[in-house]
């Protein structure tokens, strides 16, 4: 726990008062540092992901000597507590009191949605890690870029892989009963069924369900696999309980359940699980090796996907600042730079963005293996240039309603 968590620069309290960012002429302000607001969760049940997010950001700016391009950086970290109303207040604080030039975060989709209109009205560029589909789709927010993935983006290739490469026919899906779970499952279901697979059972569990025993005992026999879209401690609990009930079914999953940060704790229970993700700590990119070493060195843990997300955000931000010539005060130009940025060598490989601000980049199929006494997510297949609509066409995709419990419709359920 020996982390230098206090990244907030306390002196800023004195400087920020009463001046509003957009009133300051760009030329004058450019002399000062770039102010970045970082929304994360440090308390409450969601803190696990939030603390990892902080690891990524902390490591990045430590490596860069607190600079982006040639401008100094002032990082302001805010704890949303995983609560939408508090996320909004903290965003207001960052924008109104501390006059940040851009935001990174927040963790959860419902937090991102709670500040959506505020971001629009204050025109604050934000690099988000939340998965909520429509932020970059039907209700696209022009001030958002998402370098990681939508909730379903990595489920699409996994569905494709399960149907074509693994030749799976019958799969049950299991997910947290909230938007992320619904969207994550829906993406898998769509590509899987479009390629001949059948989702024969769909179960959604309340977020606060203490025990999955009931649900697990309801799983159909003769499944080729069970797909899980549980996040955080729920994914952990689900996989442990599945094996506890002696269920040896192949596990498939979205990008949350067998995260590197939890993998060692899960032990053999997770072995063999195949998941779709835009990242793995095993990726051979030079930048990633440095990142993994850095996290292991500074925090004595393996980097999870949340740490990778914010580190990735910083990489994208850095390039965009360079592209914009350091002029983050000109919001429109800076936002344009963010959306048109191409970063060839991030920890997840090359990334660019579509016109809606969502990432186009590699998507990986990974398998949990044991290497040298350690559990790892080995990459077994790479889908290149996967965007949020892959493999569908944007306009056709957007004609459909947003992914939910009921869309795409489930035609193959067995009851």
């Amino acid at each position, binding site marked *: 726990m020996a982390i230098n968590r206090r990244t907030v620069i306390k002196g800023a309290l004195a400087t920020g008062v009463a001046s509003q960012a957009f009133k300051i002429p760009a030329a004058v302000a450019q002399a000062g540092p770039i102010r970045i607001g970082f929304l994360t969760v440090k308390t409450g049940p969601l803190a696990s992901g939030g603390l990892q997010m902080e690891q990524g950001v902390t490591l990045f700016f430590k490596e860069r000597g607190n600079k982006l391009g040639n401008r100094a950086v002032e990082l302001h970290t805010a704890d949303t507590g995983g609560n*939408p109303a508090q996320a909004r*207040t903290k965003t207001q604080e960052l924008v*109104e009191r501390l006059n940040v030039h851009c935001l990174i975060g927040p963790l959860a989709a*419902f937090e991102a949605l709670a500040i959506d209109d505020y971001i629009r009205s204050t025109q604050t560029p934000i690099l988000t890690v939340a998965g909520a589909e429509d932020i970059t789709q039907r209700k696209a927010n022009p001030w958002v870029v998402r370098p990681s993935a939508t909730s379903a983006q990595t489920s699409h290739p996994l569905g494709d892989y399960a149907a074509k490469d693994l030749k799976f026919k019958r799969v049950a899906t299991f997910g947290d009963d*909230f938007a992320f779970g619904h969207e994550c499952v829906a993406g898998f279901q769509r590509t899987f069924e479009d390629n001949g697979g059948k989702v024969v059972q769909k179960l959604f569990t309340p977020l606060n369900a203490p025990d999955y025993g009931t649900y697990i005992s309801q799983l159909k026999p003769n499944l080729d696999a069970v797909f899980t879209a549980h996040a955080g401690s729920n994914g952990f609990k689900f996989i442990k309980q599945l094996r506890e009930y002696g269920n040896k079914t192949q596990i498939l999953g979205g990008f949350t359940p067998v995260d590197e940060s939890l993998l060692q704790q899960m032990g053999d229970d997770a072995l063999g699980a195949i998941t779709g993700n835009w990242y793995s700590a095993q990726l051979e990119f030079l930048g990633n090796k440095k990142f993994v070493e850095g996290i292991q060195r500074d925090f004595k843990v393996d980097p999870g996907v949340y740490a990778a997300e914010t580190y990735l955000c910083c990489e994208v931000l850095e390039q965009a600042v360079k592209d914009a010539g350091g002029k983050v005060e000109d919001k429109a130009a800076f936002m344009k730079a963010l959306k048109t940025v191409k970063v060839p060598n991030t920890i997840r490989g090359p990334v660019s963005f579509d016109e809606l601000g969502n990432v186009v980049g590699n998507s990986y199929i990974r398998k949990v293996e044991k290497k040298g006494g350690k559990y790892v997510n080995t990459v077994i297949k790479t889908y290149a240039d996967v965007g949020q609509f892959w493999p569908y066409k944007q306009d056709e995709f957007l004609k459909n309603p947003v992914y939910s419990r009921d869309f795409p419709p489930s035609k193959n359920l067995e009851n």
Partner: protein
Amino acid sequence: MTRWNAIWLAIVAALLIAVPTVIGNEFYVNMASQVLIYALFALSINMMLGYGGMVSLGHAGYLGLAGYACILLTINGFDQLSAAILALAFSTVMAGFFGMLSLRAPGLGFIMITLALGQIVWGIAYRANDLTGGDNGLRLPARPMPFGIDLNSAPRFYYFALAVVAVALFFIWRFSRSPFGASLMGARDQPRRMSMLGHNVWLIRWLTFVLAGFWGSVASLLFVYYNLFLSPHALGLQQSAEILLMAILGGASSLAGPIVGAAIITLVKNVISSYVERWNTLLGAIFVIVIIFMPYGLVPGCRELWRRIAQRRKPSASKAASEPAA
């Protein structure tokens, strides 16, 4: 009202009106608006808690009832005023129904029914995602424009909230000194005796439950107008507990207590938390320490402390004064 009270009131009113000009920064003005909103929540729950002795753990349910009703009506084409009135009416009627269920059981039973009802509202908000957007929540398109006044700037919204809360506070203040209020407090202390004196204790409690629900719903509308967003997180048990804790922390037996409690909890959550990483521990510690030293909350506790200090300063005078009155 004594002359001193009038002077105090004038000073406090002047201070409150001056808040936006004195503070200046939008963020803190918004913070003040939030304190006002939560103060109204705490004041409304305190009608039950302080005067009626009814501990409710489901008050955030009104956020769900009034809040979602208001947003849904607005989205479906109602103008802001009708939406607000209908939402308040709906929520108050539901309060009537909830009151009938909750008042079946006394004490812990009452707490548990209100908790369960709050959780059921939460569950519906969560599960009925076609209607409520589920976990993703719903957005209110815009703040209302009462009498054509645009409320989008922080100071204007602050004054709007201040006006609403002032009206509510005035009502609740009158309520606390009214014959009905006296009957309610009587029913809190000696329910059996009260009914033997001809008071319909059940009806007194139920009406209070409904009134508290009404003002809770008004606070809910302010919450929604302020945030322009509502999701199930805002109406969970956590939120209900927070509202209850505000009233207890400040002192349920006083009118100012809930306001003080609301200010402390809101500020620790939203402002202190930027400087103190373990703000949850701090909040918990405040609860424990306050109750150990001031078992009935901050405002009554401070009043008592003040009285003692004053007594020590001029022992002879106060002794004489306390003999006949006390």
